[in-house]
């Protein structure tokens, strides 16, 4: 607008609010703001009137009442005497755990399927195409239900593990025995694995209602410490390589640094395993992973993996052919070409769709409703809502939490994206 200076300064007319570009945007914004506020006021007014008509109020006090129901999978301490907010926290943790493992497995699966789909092995390429197309074009809900049904219909029942009186009389072992040297049992109720625990505890510290075991803290500290030490070692090796052209042999040092400290700490703390044993009805002790979780994890990973495979494939295809030809000319083998030349470049193209797939996966954990996996929706937006009749409060709280999770994930991934982005100068 270079001619702004030439505008005649003949006072202000009302019509300028619409026809003068200097004022029009302000006019529009003011009108929109008024309309927006009116809309919000209308909604709030309706809500207040409706609540009054139903003789209800908005109060979050019910969250501190006794929940009264039990949850199958609890990763934070919870009993039916705990409060509703505690139940919501249990649900939130269940959601996050599912989303976390789902993202990891989906990524692994997606990268493999995407790369293998471009493989020159005919049958593998076709199989991967079939996998990607089938999973992308059938609703996730169907996969969740299907995996769940398969798990509970095809695996041995707990009854098969039982040493019944009849079998003892016949001198026969139970129909099915535990695998991995009698430590792991896979039944149609869930997966039972040994639970690690420390014989010598260092005690616990209490932090705002949450008790944290010092043992766990120590283990985490040691793992992070050795990880950092290993990185320093590798950086040092790279420096030597750049200076001398020879790469020092470090794999055994690396292994030592990574694993020796943690093994020592575990021995010092007296690590042992609580192996599941067959009780009256099913396995007691150890860690039991219910099939609702497994089914969600498998279905989400397979479904999202198919989408990630598609993103990986198009990322790889977007890398110009000259790159791989140049790598072959340097004498690199196909595997190393993929790992060192193609994938790092494709990564920049892959990451944006990957972010949205992670977000989708996290939001799709709410489909746990289909197999009654008690995630955030199942506890706060399900049983709590249902038992207390506080729809408005529960739903708003639940949406807010989902929104915060989504925003955190997308901002984290955007940070990562800008870190690996091509730095143009």
């Amino acid at each position, binding site marked *: 607008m270079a001619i702004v200076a030439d505008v005649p300064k003949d006072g202000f007319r009302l019509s300028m609010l*619409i*026809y003068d570009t200097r004022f029009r*945007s302000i006019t*529009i*914004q003011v009108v*929109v*703001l008024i309309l*927006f506020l009116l809309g919000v006021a209308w*909604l709030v007014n*309706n*809500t207040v*009137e*409706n*609540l009054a*008509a139903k003789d209800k109020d908005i109060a979050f006090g019910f969250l501190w009442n006794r929940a009264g129901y039990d949850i199958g999978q609890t990763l934070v301490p919870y009993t039916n005497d705990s409060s509703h907010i505690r139940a919501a926290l249990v649900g939130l943790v269940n959601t996050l755990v599912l989303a976390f493992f789902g993202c990891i497995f989906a990524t692994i699966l997606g990268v493999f399927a995407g790369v*293998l789909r471009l*493989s*020159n*092995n*005919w*049958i*593998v390429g076709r*199989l991967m195409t079939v996998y990607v*197309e*089938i999973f*992308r*074009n*059938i*609703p*996730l*809900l*169907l996969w969740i*239900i*299907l995996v769940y*049904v398969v798990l509970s219909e095809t695996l041995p029942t707990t009854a098969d593990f039982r040493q019944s009186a009849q079998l003892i009389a016949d001198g026969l072992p139970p129909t099915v025995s535990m695998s991995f040297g009698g430590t792991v049992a896979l039944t149609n109720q869930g997966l039972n694995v040994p639970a690690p625990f420390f014989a010598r505890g260092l005690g616990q510290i209490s932090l705002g209602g949450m008790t944290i075991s010092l043992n766990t803290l120590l283990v985490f500290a040691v793992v992070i410490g050795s990880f950092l030490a290993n990185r320093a070692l590798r950086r040092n090796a790279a420096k030597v390589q750049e200076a001398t052209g020879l790469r020092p042999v470090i794999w055994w040092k690396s292994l030592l640094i990574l694993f020796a400290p943690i093994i020592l700490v575990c021995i010092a703390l007296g690590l042992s395993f609580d192996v599941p044993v067959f009780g009256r009805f099913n396995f007691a002790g150890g860690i039991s992973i219910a099939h609702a979780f497994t089914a969600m994890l498998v279905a989400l990973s397979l479904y999202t993996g198919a989408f990630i495979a598609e993103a990986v494939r198009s990322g790889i295809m977007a890398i110009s052919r000259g790159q791989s030809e140049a790598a072959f000319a340097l004498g690199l083998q196909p595997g190393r070409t993929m790992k060192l030349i193609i994938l790092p470049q494709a990564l920049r193209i892959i990451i944006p769709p990957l972010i949205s797939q992670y*977000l989708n996966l996290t*939001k*799709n954990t*709410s*489909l746990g*409703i*289909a197999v009654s996996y008690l995630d955030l*929706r199942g506890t706060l*937006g399900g049983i709590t*809502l249902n038992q207390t009749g506080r*729809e*408005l409060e529960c*739903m708003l709280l*639940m*949406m807010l939490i*989902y*929104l915060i999770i*989504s*925003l955190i994930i997308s901002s984290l991934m955007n940070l990562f994206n800008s870190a690996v982005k091509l730095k143009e100068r």
Partner: protein
Amino acid sequence: MSELHAQTVPFVRDSMLPQELPPASQRGAVKWVRENLFSGPMNTILTVLSLLVVFLILQSSLPWWLNSVWNANSLAECRAAVQAMAGEGATGACWAVIRERWHQFMFGFYPRGLYWRPVLAFALLFVALAPVLFGDNARKRMILLACVAVALVLALIGVGTDLAHVSFAIVAMAAILAVSHLAPARLIWATLLFPAVGFFLLWGGSVWGPIGVLMGFGVLVAVYRLLLPMLGVVMGTALGFLAACVWWLMIQTHVTTVLHNLMPWGLEAIDSDQFGGFLLAFTIGVTAIAASLPLGILLALGRRSDMFLIKTLSVGFIEFIRGVPLITMLFTASLLLQYFLPPQTNFDLILRVIILVTLFASAYIAEVVRGGLAALPRGQYEAADALGLDYWKAQRHIIMPQALKISIPGIVSSFIGLFKDTTLVAFVGLLDPLKGVTAIVRADINWKGIYWEPYIFVGTIFFLICFGMSRYSMYLEKKLKTDHR
């Protein structure tokens, strides 16, 4: 050298040897297998593993497929038939349930005699989409429309329609074909009228309801035309819209009631709660995507706007919707909407779900359109400015036609995603094909305990529809790629 040559008879080949075949390992199937399956140790392992997987899948499921039963009245009969056919302990598929209940998977509780209405509406959907799908190619469009017409007639006969309605459909399709041949530009009217026609066909009721709504648009255009010379575009549009709202909210019912009393034409009214199965999935999916397009375009423009407030509101809305799962939106529709609307209004669940799903889809469409807008070279905007076009004119003539064209594949994938997600409506008590209808079928004492067959049936249909659409979207992408970038 030369001596040797001198002593030998010069050899001149006078007949060519027949061309030898390549060695056995370098030709035909063997070569193909070597190159494509066993070209290295890694590939060999992969091949063997893949074959093993295929074999295991076939081994476990083939007998089940082969022992299919099509004629039975209950699961128990099915099981008995399988035992009789393949011996004790054999398992087999019981497709009899699909045979008996297919209409519920397709149409829910829609009255059986009226299946021609959704089928016709579905065919008209393709007619409405024809200008969008093949707008530039008259021959392809004619072929598509002819295929739709033939498929329509076959489908109508398939669902047992009486002759009168079949012939009505034939006449309607013939008319559309004629219009498409003689005046292709007029076909856009079919697209514009489709929402009203589709609504009338699906829900029925008095013909004057949809006509009254259309008349509102007539009022809008008339007022706009009338005021344009006097007040300009902005005020003309605003007042036209206002007049249309006045018509819709205050006058329409009175006029349509009078008209209906004078000429009581219409179709049998169908309640939304009789919708179910794929009819419901399509109704929700198509309506939501169609309705979310204008909203999404506005949001995308708002997000790119220079005006701070508009940008903030658009970004806030888009990010909020994209941040929460669809299922929370559905529960909002079923549990919360009653709090946000004026007291004592109450309309049926399907409508509430469609509204919320539309809002949901509009955020995703906005992102797709934003991508299309971003893909346009800056020069296009500058050229529009250079021509002296104002904002809306530039959008209408320069920006949107190109940006939307680029966005079509994205819009189609949004539709695929949404179409798959319509299965979630089962959780608020609607009869989606996957969980809702299946649950009803299983609640029948005859079919209690049947699992695989309904899921496989529904999954196959979903796959065919979504796969077809994604292929079409890929084809479009390829076609559009040539003229941009």
